[in-house]
């Protein structure tokens, strides 16, 4: 720390150049960082604006309640895909949440051990795993041996993608629970497991809900892991052992098709998908706000 400061003191350039010039450089660079920050959100605005312009027209109540129409017929909806996505999210949560929260509790309570460090590191590595690799793994592991695509395989694939996110948030949130609270519970005669589950976990619940919502928002839009697992379905199906439609999958198929009617449907689908994801994201922000005040600033 002192080394860098000392180096600044000895550096020739601040003294050699005039103060006015140095100040001018500083102003220009500060302005440039402001420009960079503004440019960074231009794509977001562009995408959202374009989506709303293109998608709002095709969006109606019909879109949520009716089935896809064959090529050549305008209108129709994606009821099957919307229901399919919700089912897939449900399966994913059933797979990802218990494992993620359990592993997070372990990391928070057994933090310093070598195994905990390894698990933490691998959770971060798993977080960066390409979604397509998760897709072919799930196919190899859950689809190929069984012999057909299924909602369960798709849900499990995206559920596995939730694990690292939920693990790390749970760990962080459980760590913020004051030790005194834990000690108070133990002193009252609570066994350790009840202290952890009923006192510590419940206190940290607000933050954990946030992490869960972020994870759900992330996997709700995942497409690549579903390509070879849930596979998609043109018909209405809620059977867990059968292929199932999903909003992102349907969107992909429609987007790369050559038909204008399908493109319109794709835009409407994208609008619904992004609304779902953004609402969950914004919601998660407010859970954190109200629970933790400025703690996460």
């Amino acid at each position: 720390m002192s080394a860098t400061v000392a180096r600044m003191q000895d550096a020739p350039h601040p003294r050699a150049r005039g103060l006015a010039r140095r100040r001018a450089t500083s102003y220009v660079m500060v302005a440039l960082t402001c420009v960079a920050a503004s440019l960074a959100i231009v794509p977001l605005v562009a995408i959202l604006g374009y989506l709303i312009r293109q998608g709002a027209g095709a969006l109606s109540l019909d879109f949520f309640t009716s089935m896809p129409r064959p090529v050549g017929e305008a209108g129709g909806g994606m009821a099957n895909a919307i229901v399919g996505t919700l089912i897939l999210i449900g399966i994913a949560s059933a797979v990802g949440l218990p494992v993620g929260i359990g592993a997070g509790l372990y990391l928070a309570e057994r933090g310093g051990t070598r195994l905990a460090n390894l698990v933490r590191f691998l959770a971060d590595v798993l977080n960066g795993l390409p979604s397509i690799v998760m897709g072919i793994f799930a196919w190899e592991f859950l689809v190929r041996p069984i012999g057909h695509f299924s909602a369960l395989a798709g849900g499990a694939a995206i559920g596995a993608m939730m694990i690292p996110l939920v693990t790390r948030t749970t760990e962080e949130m459980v760590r913020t629970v004051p030790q005194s609270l834990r000690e108070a519970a133990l002193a009252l005669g609570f066994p350790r497991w009840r202290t952890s589950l009923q006192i510590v976990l419940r206190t940290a619940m607000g933050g954990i809900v946030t992490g869960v919502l972020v994870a759900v928002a992330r996997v709700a839009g995942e497409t690549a892991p579903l390509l070879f697992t849930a596979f998609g379905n043109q018909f209405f199906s809620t059977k867990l052992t059968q292929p199932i439609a999903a909003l992102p999958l349907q969107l992909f198929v429609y987007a790369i098709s050559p038909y204008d009617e399908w493109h319109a449907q794709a835009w409407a689908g994208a609008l619904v998908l992004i609304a779902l994801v953004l609402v969950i994201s914004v919601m998660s922000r407010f859970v954190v706000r109200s629970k933790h005040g400025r703690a996460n600033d």
Partner: protein
Amino acid sequence: MQTPTLPATVTTPEPRTPPALAAPLAGSPAPPARVSIEGTVVADRVYRAAILGFALCVPILLLLIFVEVGIAGWPALRQFGFGFLTSSTWDPVAGQFGAAPAIAGTVITSIIALVIATPLALGGAIFLSDFAPSWVRQPLAFLIDLLAAVPSVVYGLWGVFFLLPLLREDVMPFLRDTLHLGATPFFRGPAYGPSVLAAGLILSIMVLPYIAAVSREVLMAVPRSQREAALALGATRWETITGAVIPFARSGIIGGVILGLGRALGETMAVTMVIGNRHELSASLFAPGYTMASLIANEFSEATSDVHLSALMAVGFVLLLITLVVNAVARWLVWQTGGSRS
């Protein structure tokens, strides 16, 4: 869940007992007085074993992915050997598979993405950590984070209908003819739209929030005293950043960029939709190409022969290896500078 009165963190200014905290204690049944010590010990053991089991799921899952994909790809790797990585013939009919174009496409698109995204993300992160007025800080950071929440397939849709026409009609002719970059081999050839350049551009938007978030976090982890010392020595605000803040946060920022690289390497849907999907090794960024991820996404469901399937699995295995190494390096660098969340 919505009780606003639960300051459950250590940073609470007034450490009074929060009412909602007392609730679970009072509300849940009183600790049973006459449970045997043995019962408690057993229950605690079960609890510990359970969370240990859940924690072990993470390494087991990773190992399983590694082994399953590796075994599935092994026949192709054995048959084609090192040539699998260097050959550019990908011919499912003849049963010849070389992944060089896809590997090259992956690397090139990722480099384009990083070259564009890094300055913007870093500049934005510096602005947010050091210069932005406090009322701008939170909303702006939130908006940049939202970029990461947009699903890949939506980026792809936008890319197909907005970015590709824009590239075809305006950007590509401008680069090639107006700026005369067509003289270099990199900007040559007809402007179709679907191209390596389009994929790189989409990727740059997609990795930006990741680089920005990590950079911002490590910049904010730089101690205040570091900045104050520089300012006290007469440095301008910018000199404080370059002289005192960035050197301190350097390895964390590099870690953030590498993390972005990891995202770019593995990104699938948006790239598949705009890259054109052609097995071709071309120096021109205007030409269509393939990345490893888009190759798998595009051909996996059509693969009929065992060797084709195995070759795609082998591509997945190579991608897995590369991203594992990249992510491990990135995490290590970020941890060194005290950042923790991604």
